[in-house]
């Protein structure tokens, strides 16, 4: 038995079906090209950087390759309400770099001092915001620092499970606190105004309850 929807699909002509299978609509090609401009610019930049020669020829072939990539691998437009705040974003990058130094030292110390006796923990963290992109960025930021990474994400309930090296039993609260601080930094750097209000409200609520 073929389900009704599938049967309707099969009865359509081959041309129609091919069009229905497309990820990206073929209408309004100019608008689509404009929307793709950031992706194209990025691809051209990567191409030029790979060659290391900055001249018209390289850029021209970069554009050709970028257009080829965009045609062969069409991607649906990403709907997002993220806002880039350059100052906050630079601060986030700086903080990531600093965190990397500190935690590299910490992991190295663990390896030298404790070695086989090292203990670890997996802590459940309930994130405040509910957005695919923010969750991904928070997980990436947490995972970049040595000693911690996100081992599992329960997207539906906004929960991250964070593996941390060198913890003792009472550390769960401080790890949760740390991950939420990362979330706050990421949201302040790229989140929408509503999400910024959400994380700030969460902080002040946490302070009152303490």
């Amino acid at each position, binding site marked *: 038995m073929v389900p009704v929807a599938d049967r309707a699909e099969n009865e359509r002509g081959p041309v129609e079906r091919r069009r229905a299978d497309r990820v990206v609509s073929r209408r309004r090609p100019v608008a689509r090209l404009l929307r793709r401009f950031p992706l194209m610019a990025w691809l051209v930049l990567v191409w030029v950087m790979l060659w290391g020669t900055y001249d018209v020829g390289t850029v021209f072939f970069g554009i050709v390759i970028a257009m080829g990539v965009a045609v062969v691998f069409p991607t649906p437009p990403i709907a997002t309400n993220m806002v880039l705040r350059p100052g906050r974003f630079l601060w986030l990058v700086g903080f990531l770099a600093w965190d990397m130094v500190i935690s590299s030292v910490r992991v190295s110390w663990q*390896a030298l001092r404790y070695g086989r006796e090292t203990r670890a923990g997996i802590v459940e963290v309930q994130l405040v915001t509910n957005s695919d992109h923010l969750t991904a960025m928070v997980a990436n930021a947490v995972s970049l620092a040595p000693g911690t990474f996100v081992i599992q994400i329960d997207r539906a309930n906004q929960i991250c499970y964070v593996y941390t090296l060198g913890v003792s039993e009472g550390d769960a609260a401080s790890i949760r606190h740390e991950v939420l601080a990362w979330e706050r930094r990421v949201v302040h750097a790229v989140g929408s105004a509503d999400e910024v209000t959400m994380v700030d409200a969460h902080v002040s609520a946490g302070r009152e309850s303490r």
Partner: protein
Amino acid sequence: MSLLDVFLDVFSAVCLLTGALSCLLGSIGLARFPDVGARLQAATKPQTFGLLLILVGSAVHLELRNASGLILVALFQLLTAPVLAQLVGRAAYRANSIRRDVLVIDELGQRLDSEKYHR
């Protein structure tokens, strides 16, 4: 040899040596840590940091046209290392390769147990 050259030489020497040291410490961790989860940390993170330092140390001695490729190396390392750690870590956890006796807190295990998920 101008003062700037001396400064650049010292700067890149410090970067290269610290980077190498960080990679070495990562390898020591790889050998000494008790299970996959901990080893994954040693294998991915101090190495990333070490690589970044080595790239910076080399870049200051190169012309911009040659150094631009190094920026891409750093960028893709930073983008891919956390993803790799997450995938391997998750697979290791599911395959029971992360030793439960090493974990002092395991809230994921509690959750999975309460949902009768694993085993």
